[in-house]
């Protein structure tokens, strides 16, 4: 059995690895200027006390390090540290994973950075063999857990026009393999970890195209297509599943955010769309099931009475998998309207109401009632509020 694993691992080691999308909330953001190649760190709050103007530090990206000189400044009210370094090599950086960018001061704590600029890297973790945790209620005696990960993320420039933004020039590839399994002692025990996956994705550059609308913007904005796939398989049984999905998303600028009954004009992203369609196949204990899955969603924002923002989301889900529960319909629709309020022109919006239903009618009725109430308040001279 162990020999079979080793052979499989060696075969799979040639296939690289997938990354989760970064969530940089609350973290310092690292980004690189699209032209100059100079980097900067933007802080969501104050600059850490260990960072001072002119400090010499070390920027570490994966296995590569760069001596950096810090220049503290403020951009759009956000505190940033501009870093003067040697040119950053965005070739595939070995040993780099999503959390692996740091700024090391001469003294004090290392500052972990969250990368916004897509960086290329390969990642390799393991193989590691550890005694398995016995909280699975099986007999842990002699049981070993084997973990291994390998991955590659790579941007390939397919359009060399320097006037285009990088997202319009590059194809992005993500490939990964992850093995997490246990050398179980009995074939009947299903409680030990046995989660092994190969996943890959390729995303096209963003394209803006189509006839110009009355506002001068092309019909389609930053449309991107991608193919995503994943195969998961247990090593100790025949259980497996496969998912393949085609994804297309982008924006439609002909429908800009509108302002109803407002003196001012607030703008944000126009109508957004997301489409995905694919095939799912599952084999659990010899019971095979599968079928088509698809979803389509539209997101739109508009503003009312200068103080309110409405976020509308319409989603349709198709689930044609053969073994879906009787209570799950083949097609599901959902509509959601979220209303947010701000005190004055430049203050932050806060959510004050949310309406959700499987049909658009009840959602729009609730929304209409909400704003009739707000309108009546205004006519009566009652200050706008929650």
């Amino acid at each position, binding site marked *: 059995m162990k020999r079979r694993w080793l052979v499989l691992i060696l075969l799979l080691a040639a296939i690289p690895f997938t990354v989760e999308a*970064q969530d*940089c*909330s*609350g973290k310092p*953001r*690292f*980004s*690189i*200027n*699209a*032209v*100059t190649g100079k*980097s*900067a*760190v*933007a*802080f*969501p709050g104050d600059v850490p006390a260990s960072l001072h103007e002119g400090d010499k530090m070390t920027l570490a990206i994966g296995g590569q390090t760069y001596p950096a000189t810090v220049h503290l*400044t403020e*951009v*759009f*009210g*956000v505190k*940033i540290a*501009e870093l003067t370094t040697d040119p950053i090599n965005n070739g595939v950086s070995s040993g780099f994973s999503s959390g692996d960018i740091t700024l090391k001061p001469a003294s004090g704590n290392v500052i972990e950075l969250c990368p*916004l*600029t897509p960086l290329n890297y390969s990642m390799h973790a393991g193989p590691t063999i550890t005694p398995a945790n016995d909280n699975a209620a099986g007999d842990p005696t002699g049981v070993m857990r084997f973990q291994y990960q390998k991955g590659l993320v790579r941007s390939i420039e397919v359009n060399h026009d*320097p*006037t*285009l*933004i990088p*997202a319009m020039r590059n194809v992005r590839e993500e490939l990964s393999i992850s093995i997490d399994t246990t050398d179980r002692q009995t074939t009947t025990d299903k409680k030990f970890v046995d989660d092994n996956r190969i996943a890959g994705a390729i995303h096209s550059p963003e394209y*803006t195209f189509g006839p110009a609308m009355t*506002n*001068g*913007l092309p019909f389609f*904005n*930053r449309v991107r297509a991608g193919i995503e796939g994943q195969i998961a398989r247990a090593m100790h049984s025949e259980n497996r599943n496969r998912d393949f999905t085609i994804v297309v998303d982008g*924006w*439609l*600028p002909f429908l*800009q*955010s509108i302002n109803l009954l407002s003196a*001012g*004009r*607030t*703008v*944000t*992203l*126009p109508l957004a769309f997301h489409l995905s369609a694919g095939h799912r196949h599952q084999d659990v204990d010899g019971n095979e099931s599968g079928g088509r899955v698809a979803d389509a969603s539209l997101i739109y*924002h508009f*503003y009312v009475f200068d103080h309110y*923002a409405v*976020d509308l989301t319409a989603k349709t889900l198709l689930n044609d998998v053969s073994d879906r529960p009787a209570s799950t319909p083949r097609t599901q629709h959902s509509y959601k309207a979220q209303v947010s309020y*701000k005190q004055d*022109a*430049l*203050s*932050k*919006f806060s959510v004050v109401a949310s309406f959700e239903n499987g049909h658009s009618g009840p959602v729009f009725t609730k929304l209409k009632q909400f704003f009739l109430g707000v309108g009546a308040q205004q006519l009566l001279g009652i200050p706008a509020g929650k």
Partner: protein
Amino acid sequence: MTATMLTFASPPQSDSAGKVAEACSKKGFATIGINIQGPDDVIDFGRFDTQSCIDLANAIEICVDSKGFEVPSLAGAFDVMREKGIQITFANFVKALTSVMKPKVP
């Protein structure tokens, strides 16, 4: 003629930077599908997504570079503005951009 040439040879830096900042800001917002109509338009960053912040930043960086200026990397600042739900008028956006623009060092 001489006056014209002198004006051309040593243009008023801030005015030129301001015009470039305005043109490049408009172009940047157009890149992400937003039509700016005037200086009083309020831009609601709270409804942006991270990729749009990066695309906006990159579009402005490329534009100002083509006009002989440079700016620090802007993507991080825009993404922080998104996270904080910042709203800013187009006029103030242009002022803020102008303040961080520097002539490109050859």
